[in-house]
């Protein structure tokens, strides 16, 4: 079968969704299909430009394609007679973030019109789709609440599980992934200032903007953490990233209201590392459960300091939580062959 994976593209921005699309194509090929990806540019600022981008996607015509797997708004608006959605993102600023007053849509009637436009276009697209899967329970629940669509959760597999075999617990907590304000690495630094002296922290990953890196460096300097915190702020080779995970005592991942389980958490669990997260981290809590697979605390420096101390206070307990995280992840039973099969149904 000729399968096209359709995703958005923000030039020179690379994250989990891009990795997922790449590995989906790879695994489709491994399963014996012809597969390619189509990446459609999308710029959400200013929001008044969104309607024209929706129209452009809708105007595209595909041929010589047997099946489409579309991942994100507005790329999923592309027309095809056999289209399955693996929904990573609706445009949340037209849904829950709109209701929460955290939208980038203009205030007043124009913003409301664009919101309605997005919702109606989504509705039309969902109605014409063959199957709809979501990447997490959070995304599924939002889809049900706002669009009345019953979808099935299909969590993305870890792309290269063989790299995350685990290993001897080191003396640091690892915070990996993209570095930005929403991922709240800065909060971990504030916590480290009042955590025990034996605690170590490694923050490693690409900053979204230079200011995100500068913010962390400034905090390390200001809080006198240079001897206990390592900042490795760059796009890491995959083996370097995996080594940081495998050799850590625990993995901290505390994004604000993440939609999905999060690659960082899934890879930590694959490696048998306990997950340290916060109560407002959304989909991550599908894997991080306090006292079962790690620690889930209030998103404050004090609470996080307490959790970091717990990582090092009882290594046996920490190891057990890591094993439980691995077992919990394996119990979900997510792997690429079955995922590909579902997406091509």
């Amino acid at each position: 079968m000729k399968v096209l994976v359709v995703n958005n593209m923000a030039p020179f921005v690379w994250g989990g969704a891009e990795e997922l699309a790449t590995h989906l194509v790879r695994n489709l090929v491994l399963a014996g299909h012809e597969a390619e990806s189509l990446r459609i540019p999308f710029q959400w600022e200013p929001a008044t430009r969104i309607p024209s981008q929706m129209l452009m996607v809708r105007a595209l015509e595909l041929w010589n394609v047997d099946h489409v797997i579309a991942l994100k708004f507005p790329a999923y608006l592309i027309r095809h007679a056999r289209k399955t959605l693996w929904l990573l993102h609706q445009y949340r600023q037209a849904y829950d973030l709109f209701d929460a007053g955290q939208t980038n849509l203009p205030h007043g009637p124009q913003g409301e019109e664009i919101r309605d436009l997005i919702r109606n276009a989504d509705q039309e697209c969902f109605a014409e789709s063959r199957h709809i899967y979501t990447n997490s329970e959070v995304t599924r629940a939002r889809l049900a609440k706002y669009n009345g669509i019953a979808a099935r959760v299909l969590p993305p597999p870890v792309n290269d599980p063989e790299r995350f075999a685990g290993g001897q617990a080191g003396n640091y907590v690892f915070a990996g992934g993209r570095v930005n304000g929403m991922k709240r690495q800065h909060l971990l630094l504030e916590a480290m200032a009042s955590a025990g002296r034996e605690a170590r922290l490694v923050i490693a990953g690409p900053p979204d903007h230079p200011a995100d890196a500068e913010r962390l460096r400034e905090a390390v300097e200001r809080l006198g953490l240079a001897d206990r915190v390592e900042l490795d702020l760059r796009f890491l080779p995959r083996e370097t990233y995996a080594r940081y995970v495998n050799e850590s005592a625990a993995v901290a991942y505390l994004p604000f209201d993440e939609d999905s389980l999060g690659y960082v958490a899934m890879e930590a669990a694959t490696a048998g590392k306990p997950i340290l997260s916060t109560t407002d981290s959304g989909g991550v809590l599908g894997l991080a459960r306090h006292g079962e697979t790690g620690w889930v605390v209030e998103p404050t420096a004090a609470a996080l300091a307490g959790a970091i101390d717990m990582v090092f206070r009882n290594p046996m307990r920490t190891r057990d939580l890591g094993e439980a995280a691995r077992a919990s992840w394996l119990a979900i039973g997510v792997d690429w062959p079955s995922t590909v099969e579902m997406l091509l149904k």
Partner: protein
Amino acid sequence: MKLVLFTPATTASAIGRMASLVSRALIAQGHAVTVARTEDASLLDTDTHDFGVSAVPWNDARGLRRHVEGADALIYQIGDNLEFHRGCMEWLPGHPGIVCLHDFFLGHLFYGWSGTRREQALAVLDSWYGKDVADRFFAYPDSASFIDGTRDASPMTEWVCAMARAVVTHSRWGLDRVLRSCPGPVLVAPLAYDAVPDESGGAAPSADDGKLHLLTIGHVNPNKRVASMIRAIGDSASLRDRVRYRLVGKIEAETARSLTALAAERGVDLVISGEVGQHELTRAFARADVVSCLRWPSLEAASASAIESLLHGKPTLVTDTGFYRELPDDCVVKIDPVDELRGIRMALERLAEDPVFRHSLAGMGREWARRVFTAENYAGVLIRTIRSIGKAEPMLSAVGHFASLLTGWGGSARLLALEETAGPLRVFNEPTADTLA
């Protein structure tokens, strides 16, 4: 080419008269014209202008559809009046064509059209102008406040032009709204007009009574500035003694009473003739020394009476606004609406005292009007417009596609017209208006 011309045909319609000239010119150029007359059913048995072919009534759907489906282009003559243009509004939405726009303000046409479809009308208003304007549109207590409240906020120009595949209009005034709303080409062309025999013109007073005969024609309403004319004449002792001011055209009794009283109070010789036939109208022009075509506010795309006055070779007063501003400075006298009384008085005093100026103005105006306002020119513009539509077809098709997508998602025409939406799509190239004037 095979053309269907939707137009009022009754002799009472000035637009119909113009369209009849164009129809004959098109036929003379070798085109096959079908005339679809568009008046209300109650007017469809009235006498018609001579179009060179017989007219098919708009409500003869079966008879007309055959012509429409076989036509190279449909041409709609549209003015601000449902009574004469009902057939246009019945056919245009489903059968887009060239709109010849005789009025930029189409509020009365829209108001009439909305009579049996209020909800749809409110949606149209909301889409183009927003909810506040929609809520106000039907709430004005009288005609004057309706015009005041809607002429800028909701003139409905966009409503008609958005349904057109091309627009031919008759002045650049108000053009922005046309360009914003019409997806196809927009051309500016001078109205077509009858030639007027030489003997009916002339600058010298035609009535041998020593008076300066001043004329205003058309439905007497406040925007024709008759009261201002009377006041300006009354302000000047020389004008009071010399001017006889005649009004020819429909006039309500109350208006006639108040203007008569004003003239009596100011010592002005006012003659109110009311509605007259074409023959008497021609005589009125012949007897006139000066014609006032003042308008404020100005709502028309072009003024038939001003053109007629020029063609009759009469010195003509116009308001320095809209269509009238585009007339050449050496062919008319332009009155500043902000200093209207003084402007009228000074212009009339000069015209009364300076026969050379009067003669020069009349001659220049007539020569220019004869050259520009011809049916042959207008027919040429229509044919050129049809060819432009052919070139614009891919763009129109793209616009139609995007518009249908957007409206299918609940988006409004206003959202599609935003630069943020239309600009990146690059199918809505910055429109320009051709001018043939």
